[in-house]
C-alpha cells in the first residue's frame, strides 16, 4: 500500500532523514520505533506531505505522492494524526469531526493543474492562480449544492462509526475540544482522522502524555479499526512494548536511518531491541 524508498528530508540545513526505506502492506499495522529525535515524526510528516522530501520516492497505492501537498494527499485516502494531536482546540468536538470530513466534500484537485502551472511564466502563473481561485470557488459551490444529500448521509455514517468507537465523544459533541481530557483529545484526534474515511492511517505517538490504562484502551481501539475496517495503520511510538503488541511489522529508526526491520515477533526477540527499547 505504501512504499518509501531512500527518503531524505531536512529542516533547513538540519537533515532529519538520511535515506529511509519502508513498506506498509495493505491491511497491516506497521510500527516505527525509536528514541526522541530519531526521525519518527519527520518520516510521517514527509509521507503526509507536511515536509517536502529532498530526494527519494513515496508511493501510495502505486501512485507517486512525494510531489503532492498535504491537502492533496489527504483526499487520496491517507489521514495523518499528528504528534500532539493538533486539535482545533477552540472549536467543538462536532466541529472538529466535521473538519475531519472536509477533504471528502471539497476534494482538492489532483496534481494535474499544478504540473501545468510549473511550465508558465510569472504572469501566466498569476493568471492561472486567479482563475483557479475563482473557478475553484465556483466548483466547490457547485459540488456543495450537487449531491448534498449523499454527502450528508456519508457524513452521518462516518460520525456514527466514530461514536461507536468512542462513545464518550458522542456525549461531549458540543463541548469545546480544548476542555477535553488528554485521553479524550487523543480519541477525538483519531476520530477526526477517521472522518476522512482513510485507507491508510498515520498515527504519531498516540500514547503521548496519557496514563497507561488510557493508552492501552486507545491501542485496543486502533487494533479494532484495523481488523474491523481493514484500515492500514502506520504507527510511530516510543512505547515499543505496546506498539509491537498490536503491530505486524516494525522498523527501528536511529538518527535518520533504519537500523532494524522485521516482524514484530522477531523484533521482540532481538537482543538490540530488548536492550534499548523494551527495557529488558
Amino acid at each position, binding site marked *: 500500500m505504501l512504499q518509501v524508498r531512500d527518503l531524505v528530508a531536512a529542516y533547513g540545513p538540519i537533515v532529519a532523514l538520511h535515506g529511509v526505506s519502508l513498506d506498509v502492506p495493505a491491511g497491516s499495522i506497521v510500527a516505527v520505533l525509536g528514541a526522541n529525535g530519531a526521525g519518527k515524526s519527520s518520516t510521517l510528516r514527509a509521507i503526509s506531505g507536511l515536509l517536502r522530501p529532498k530526494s527519494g520516492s513515496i508511493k501510495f497505492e502505486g501512485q507517486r505522492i512525494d510531489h503532492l501537498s498535504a491537502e492533496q494527499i*489527504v483526499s487520496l485516502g491517507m*489521514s495523518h494524526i499528528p504528534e500532539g494531536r*493538533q486539535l482545533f482546540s477552540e*472549536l467543538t468536538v462536532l466541529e472538529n469531526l466535521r*473538519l475531519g470530513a472536509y477533504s471528502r466534500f471539497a476534494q482538492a484537485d489532483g496534481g494535474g493543474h499544478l504540473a501545468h502551472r510549473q511550465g508558465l511564466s510569472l504572469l501566466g502563473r498569476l493568471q492561472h492562480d486567479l482563475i483557479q481561485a475563482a473557478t475553484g470557488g465556483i466548483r*466547490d459551490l457547485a459540488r456543495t449544492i450537487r449531491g448534498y444529500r449523499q454527502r450528508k448521509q456519508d457524513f452521518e455514517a462516518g460520525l456514527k462509526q466514530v461514536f461507536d468507537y468512542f462513545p464518550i465523544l458522542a456525549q461531549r459533541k458540543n463541548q469545546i475540544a480544548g476542555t477535553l481530557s488528554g485521553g479524550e483529545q487523543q480519541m477525538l484526534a483519531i476520530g477526526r482522522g477517521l472522518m476522512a474515511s482513510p485507507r491508510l492511517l498515520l498515527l504519531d505517538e498516540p500514547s503521548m502524555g496519557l496514563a497507561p490504562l488510557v493508552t492501552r484502551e486507545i491501542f485496543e481501539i486502533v487494533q479494532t479499526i484495523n481488523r474491523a475496517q481493514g484500515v492500514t495503520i502506520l504507527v510511530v511510538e516510543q512505547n515499543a512494548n505496546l506498539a509491537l503488541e498490536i503491530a505486524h511489522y516494525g522498523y527501528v529508526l536511529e538518527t535518520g536511518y533504519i537500523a532494524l526491520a522485521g516482524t514484530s515477533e522477531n523484533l521482540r526477540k532481538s537482543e538490540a531491541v530488548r536492550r534499548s527499547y523494551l527495557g529488558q
Partner: protein
Amino acid sequence: MSEFWQQVVGGLATGSVYGLLALAVVLIYRSTTVLNMAQGEMATLTTFAAWSILQWGDYWIMFPLVLIIAAGMGAFIERVIIRPVEGAPVLNIIIVTLGLFAIFNNVSSWRWGGIPKGFPTPPEIHVMGIKFFGGGALDIGPTVVSYHDLTILVFAVGIMVALYLFFQYTPLGLAMRATAQNPVASRLMGIRVGRMLTVGWALSATVGAVAGLLIAPLILLQPPMMMGVLLYAFAAAVLGGLDSPVGAVVGGLIIGITENLVGTYTPKEWLGPDMKLTVTLLIIVVVLLVRPTGLFGRRTMRRV
C-alpha cells in the same frame, strides 16, 4: 432626554461604521496576525470607485458592483502582495501594508483629486408601505432619528448576521475558522490554507467597502476620509479583543456612543467636543489595564 437619545442613536450609527471597519481589520488579523494598516485606504479607494460608477449608474447597480470590485481587490492584494512575504516576520508584513496605505492614498488623490465630494445616501425604497433608506428623519417616540443613521444600522446588523451565519453554518466558514486556529492541522484536513487567506482578505475588503459607502455621506468623500475612522476602528478592535469579530462590533458601538456623549455632555471648559477622542482612548486604556486581551479576546493562555 430627547437630545440624549439622539446622541445615543447617532453614536450607534457612527459606532457601527467603526465596528464594520474594525470587523474588516479583525477578519485579517485573526487568520494572519497582521494588522492591515491599509484597511481604511482600501475602503476609500472602493468608495471613489463607487462615486465614479454613480456618474452613470443607479445606486443599487453600483452597490453590488462595488462589493465585487472590493472582493477582487482584497483577493488580488493577498495573492500578489501579501503572499510573497507570507513567511516574513509579522512586522515586515505590517510595513508592507503601510506601503499599501501610502500607495492607495496617492492613487485616490491622483485619480480623483483632493477636493471633497458629496456622496449620496442610498435612495429610498418602499416595502409594504414602509420607507427604507433615503433622507429625512423618523420620529421614533423618545427622539427623532435621521434616516441615514437607520440605514447604517440596518446594513451593519445585516452584515454581522450574514457573517455570523457564514462562519457558524457553512463548511467554508468552518474551514476559515479552523485555518485561523491551526494552519498545519487544517492542511491535514485537506483545507487549502492559502485559498482561505485569499477569501479572508476578499471578505475583509468587502466589509470595509460597505463601511466606506456608509460613512462617506456623513463626512464627505476625500482621500484622507478613512484615516480618522481607521483610528477608531483599531481602537474598537483592540477594545473588543483583536481576535473577536463580535468584540470588534461591540467595541465600535461603545466607542461611537462614548464619543458622542462626551462631546455633548462634558463642559467645554473642562473637556468638551475637542477632547472626545482623548477621553474615548483613555477609557480604552483603562479597560485594557483590567482585561489585557480586550473585552471578548480569548487568547489569554496558549498551550506550548
